[in-house]
């Protein structure tokens, strides 16, 4: 059997390739560029690469192409491109934060790693067989292990170690599950998993179960969530920003493709029930976990645990609209998170002061604009209007109700109520009249971070009034 690799195949992974190659360019430019500009050189080159990749992906989306490249290893289509765009946005939003943070001499390397990580995530978005999923995931994760450990803090190295060991363990489950799935279907292609005979095949069931363990770990669903607060806290700020969005987006893409396109018909409800239960638990535990946090990144980790629960609520039931609104909420979540991290970067110095919540005390007076932005993003995460978080929750609620998973909607509401309490504590600290707080002064002169915050702000509002949910995604999942 000979498979011809055509030009179309290469163009399918063009955005991914561009990102991967950009990483090399960044590394080379770092060697060549003078020391005092290499930080901005790296950021600018990376940004250009990402934007070019984004434009190409957008054109692919517009043209409506839909085919499996490399013998079905990578499926190009609306679904993959939408997720690619979200991942690219996450990467762009995180990379610009390097302008405010980090050591000069490692920035180029870090950005290169982040770009490779991005390309891994993008591969996951388009993965059509188990191998691409596995490799994309490993590419994403391996780069992130390194990125986590790059800051010169004990916590950073600790987070790298924790992430490495736990994530590898989860990868072990994932790959073992893949082996069982391969054993069940005799193929590594996702499309082959829809054979009706598999519905009663124990290998398939156990394989899917172990596969989901890996997925749930990456999505940091309870009880596979334990790594994320520690890792988020220890990792450098831009890495946390990136990780909080990109891993989730890529894993969600894999999960969505799996649940929409790789399950024998008729067993979806039963097969996926544990995931919905975990989503429900995550919504509660994630929001509850926020209540007693002292670190912004940790808080966002818990928040992310809950937000993934929201997104899964949209997917529950497997309706076409559910997928659209999951993507909508994912995009909203991306902007809200990136916005919050941009503000955190704004008030950070060399030692990431923006991460500790103690430093937000009295921010409302010292730096009203930053405080206002932070308030906005936190309230958006809580789902207050007029933000995309609000509309996203409405859409998720309506799909969950119409799909027969209203109990998830109710839990979503309960979780949101708890979350507001937690976000409110941060906001309260910002507007507290505490004259004696000894806190770090905001730098607030980082144009890129400002720009990032403003763009996120505008987009979060705009998405409320013009909900640009991708309309033609579902047919392209398969």
């Amino acid at each position, binding site marked *: 059997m000979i*498979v011809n*690799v055509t030009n179309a195949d290469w163009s399918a*992974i063009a955005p991914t390739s561009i990102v991967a190659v950009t990483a090399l360019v960044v590394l080379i430019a770092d060697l060549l560029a003078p020391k005092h500009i290499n930080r901005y050189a790296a950021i600018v080159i990376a940004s250009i690469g990402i934007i070019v990749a984004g434009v190409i992906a957008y054109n692919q989306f517009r043209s409506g192409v839909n085919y499996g490249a490399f*013998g079905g*290893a990578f499926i190009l289509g609306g679904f993959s491109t939408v997720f690619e765009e979200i991942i690219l946005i996450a990467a762009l939003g995180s990379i610009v934060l390097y302008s405010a943070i980090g050591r000069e001499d490692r920035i180029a390397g870090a950005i290169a790693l982040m770009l490779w990580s991005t390309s891994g995530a993008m591969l996951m978005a388009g993965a059509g067989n188990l191998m691409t999923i596995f490799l*994309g995931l490993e590419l994403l994760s391996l780069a992130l292990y390194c990125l986590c*450990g*790059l800051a*010169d803090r004990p916590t950073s190295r600790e987070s790298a170690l924790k992430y490495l060991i736990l994530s590898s363990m989860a990868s072990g489950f994932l790959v073992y599950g893949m082996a069982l799935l391969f054993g069940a279907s005799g193929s590594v292609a996702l499309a082959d998993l829809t054979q009706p005979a598999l519905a009663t095949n124990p290998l398939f069931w*156990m394989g899917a179960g172990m596969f989901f363990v890996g997925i749930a770990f990456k999505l940091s669903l309870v009880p596979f969530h334990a790594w994320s607060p520690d890792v988020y806290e220890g990792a450098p700020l831009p890495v946390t920003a990136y990780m909080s969005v990109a891993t989730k987006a890529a894993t969600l893409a894999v999960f969505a493709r799996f649940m929409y396109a790789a399950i024998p018909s008729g067993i979806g409800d039963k097969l996926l029930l544990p995931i919905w239960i975990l989503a429900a638990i995550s919504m509660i535990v994630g929001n509850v976990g926020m209540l007693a946090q002292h670190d912004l990144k940790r808080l966002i980790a818990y928040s992310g645990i809950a937000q993934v629960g929201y997104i899964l609520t949209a997917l529950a039931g497997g309706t076409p609209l559910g997928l659209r609104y999951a993507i909508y909420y994912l995009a909203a979540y991306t902007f809200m998170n990136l916005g919050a991290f941009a503000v955190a970067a704004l008030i950070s110095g060399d030692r990431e002061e923006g991460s500790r919540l103690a430093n937000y005390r009295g921010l409302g007076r010292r730096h009203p604009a930053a405080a206002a932005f932070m308030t906005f993003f936190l309230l958006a995460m809580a789902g207050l209007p007029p933000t995309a978080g609000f509309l996203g929750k409405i859409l998720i609620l309506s799909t969950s109700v119409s799909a027969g998973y209203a109990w998830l909607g109710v839990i979503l509401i309960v979780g949101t109520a708890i979350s507001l309490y937690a976000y409110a504590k941060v906001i309260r600290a910002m507007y507290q009249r505490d004259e004696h707080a000894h806190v770090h002064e905001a730098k607030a002169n980082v144009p890129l971070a400002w720009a990032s915050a403003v763009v996120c702000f505008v987009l979060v509002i705009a998405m409320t009034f013009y909900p640009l949910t991708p309309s033609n995604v579902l047919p392209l999942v398969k």
Partner: protein
Amino acid sequence: MAAFWILGITLIGSAIWCITNTKPVYSVVALLLNFAALAAMYLTLNAEFLAVIQMIVYSGAILILFLFVIALLSSGVTPFSVGPNKLPRIGIPAVVVLLIALGFLTYAVNRVTANAFANTSPTSPVGPVGTAGVFGSVADFGKALFTTYLLPFEITALVLMVAVIGVILLAGDQAPYVASQKQAEEVRREMREAILRGGE
């Protein structure tokens, strides 16, 4: 049949030896044994190329790396030791849980019958080990790798690149980045405090 059992017992035994040894070096040795047995088992399954790769990559590269690291970490004034166990009672529950998982996994999988695989059309026939063009041969493997599975193969390049660059960045300059002596002291104090506080 006999080979499977011998190799299987060797695999299990060496694996248990590996994780129970107090000295990491012995663990590496046990792992080496394990990998070798596994390679042999690959041979019985008509995967001679994988068996070779297993020996070269795992035994030749990865385990050597482990040994280097063990040597590196032990090279200080005192050999490295293990601190107080903060989770002393995790062993028994862990084993119980794992046995449950194992039980359910094997129970479930044992319900599959061999004829589930009967109605398949092989991509290449099974022949003697080492024969070109048959299932498991280098040619068979290579052809698949560079055609059907070209994309995964390409990605491995990136994976390795990440590993290289990542390790360089991680293990490179470890001096804390500080602008001044005063700041350096502050950083150290902060680190000390962070350690004492145990993370909030």
